[in-house]
């Protein structure tokens, strides 16, 4: 089972790696955050409002980082699942002696790899911009976020019948971290303690805390990781259940 899972993941990585347009768009999105933030900080410096706008910049950065986790795997999820159905290569794949959960986990691993790569590129961009090495705890905090983003994308792509539909819904999914970021600024409940354990929002709070130079609470990060892992697991199980249904083999 593990061998088959890795075979599927390797094939998806090779296949997606050759899709240079998809790679390029994910890389542009990942580096867009550091680019935009550096331009905004230049403008602020010119106006001499450096201190007051620092927290706005940090909020912007964390939203860009969260979005990069979602954008990195988007094309891969779209092409490897909804695209597989559309070009009718899912049927031959399911004829192999591999369970549907195995197929899905293999694809999820590949989507996760691209999500992690995109997130890493984004964090490196910000690290270069700020000339500061981020604390290692941030990696522990953000890795599960990539896995969750990949799981949600795999689920959405499994539910969709074709690339066009998947593109629509996956683009909406990318808005999730943006929406939560907005809610944190404007919602009155955003400051409450339970937000720290809410996947995506919790990671944003930790990220902001680390950028402000605060201490990171490992217990809080681990609880958040657990909540994120549970949500990712549920998304994968829902996707596997969808793949068990008869109509998935009939193309779009």
């Amino acid at each position, binding site marked *: 089972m593990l*061998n*088959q899972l890795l*075979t*599927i993941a390797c*094939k998806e990585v*090779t*296949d997606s790696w*050759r*899709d240079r347009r998809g790679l390029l768009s994910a890389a542009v999105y990942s580096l867009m955050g550091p680019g935009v933030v550096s331009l905004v900080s230049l403008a602020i410096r010119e106006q001499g409002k450096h201190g007051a706008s620092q927290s706005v910049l940090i909020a912007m950065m964390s939203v860009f980082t969260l979005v990069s986790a979602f954008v990195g795997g988007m094309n891969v999820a779209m092409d490897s699942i909804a695209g597989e159905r559309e*070009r*009718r*290569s*899912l*049927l*031959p794949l*399911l*004829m*192999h*002696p*591999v*369970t549907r959960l195995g197929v899905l986990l293999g694809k999820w691993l590949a989507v996760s790899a691209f999500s992690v790569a995109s997130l890493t590129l984004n964090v490196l961009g910000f690290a270069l911009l700020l000339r500061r090495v981020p604390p290692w705890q941030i990696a522990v905090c953000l890795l599960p976020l990539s896995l969750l983003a990949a799981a949600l994308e795999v689920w959405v792509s499994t539910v969709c019948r074709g690339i066009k539909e998947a593109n629509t819904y996956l683009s909406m999914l990318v808005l999730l971290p943006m929406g939560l970021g907005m809610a944190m600024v404007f919602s009155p409940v955003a400051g409450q303690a339970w937000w720290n354990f809410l996947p995506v929002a919790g990671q944003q709070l930790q990220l902001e805390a680390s950028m402000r130079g605060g201490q990171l609470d490992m217990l809080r990060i681990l609880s958040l990781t657990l909540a994120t892992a549970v949500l990712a697991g549920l998304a994968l199980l829902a996707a596997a259940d969808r793949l068990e249904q*008869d*109509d998935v*083999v009939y*193309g779009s």
Partner: protein
Amino acid sequence: MIEVRNLQKQFGAVAALRDVSFLALDGSITGLLGANGAGKSTTLRTLCGVLKPGGGEIRIDGASLPDDPLILQRRVGGLLDHAGLYSRLTPREIFTFSGRLHGIPWRRLRERVEEVVAFLGMQGIADRRTGGFSQGERMKTALGRALIHSPKNLLLDEPTNGLDVPTVRALRLLLHRTRDTGACVVFSSHLLEEVRALCDRVVVLAQGRVVAEGTPAELCQRAGVRTLEDAFVAFTGTAEVLSC
């Protein structure tokens, strides 16, 4: 060898298969003949474990399908409906991917890929990405993928659709060669000429039921007509009357 008994399959309110029973022997090509919507594709998809049967029994080389579909999938190779290739991969990469999923060890797989490439005469295109392939090249690649694990049973769903005459002839030759290795080949079509040219035995399907089974000559004799086309009309016409 494939034995099918009282196979049924329902999609919501639609009964795709009502009662399908037939026997496909090793070393012969069995044709599933039927009009569009008769249940040919559903039968083949159920046989290769992609669709779960709604009722009835499938035995492949003596083992029952519902017990362990994954083990049985190792004994079946299929080219169903559409080639469904990865356009950014080469045939060699597609065969290797498929072989790995079938659990063939690396060293053996390398040899096997070369065997399949040689068997299908694909030496010139084995390292080209399939994105720009012609229909014939796509069909060969899909057939190679189906043969990579040397299955004893090969299922093909209307494989000649969209192919030109030389490619159809080449495919016929390949299927005869596959049969001569002792494999059980099941082949669906609604083209009577194709079935006559290829099949040793014919199973006629109509509205999810088997309405006749035998060699093309036997079917003509039983229907009291001279051509397979007349026999087909006689059998499927009877089924329609019965179902009213």
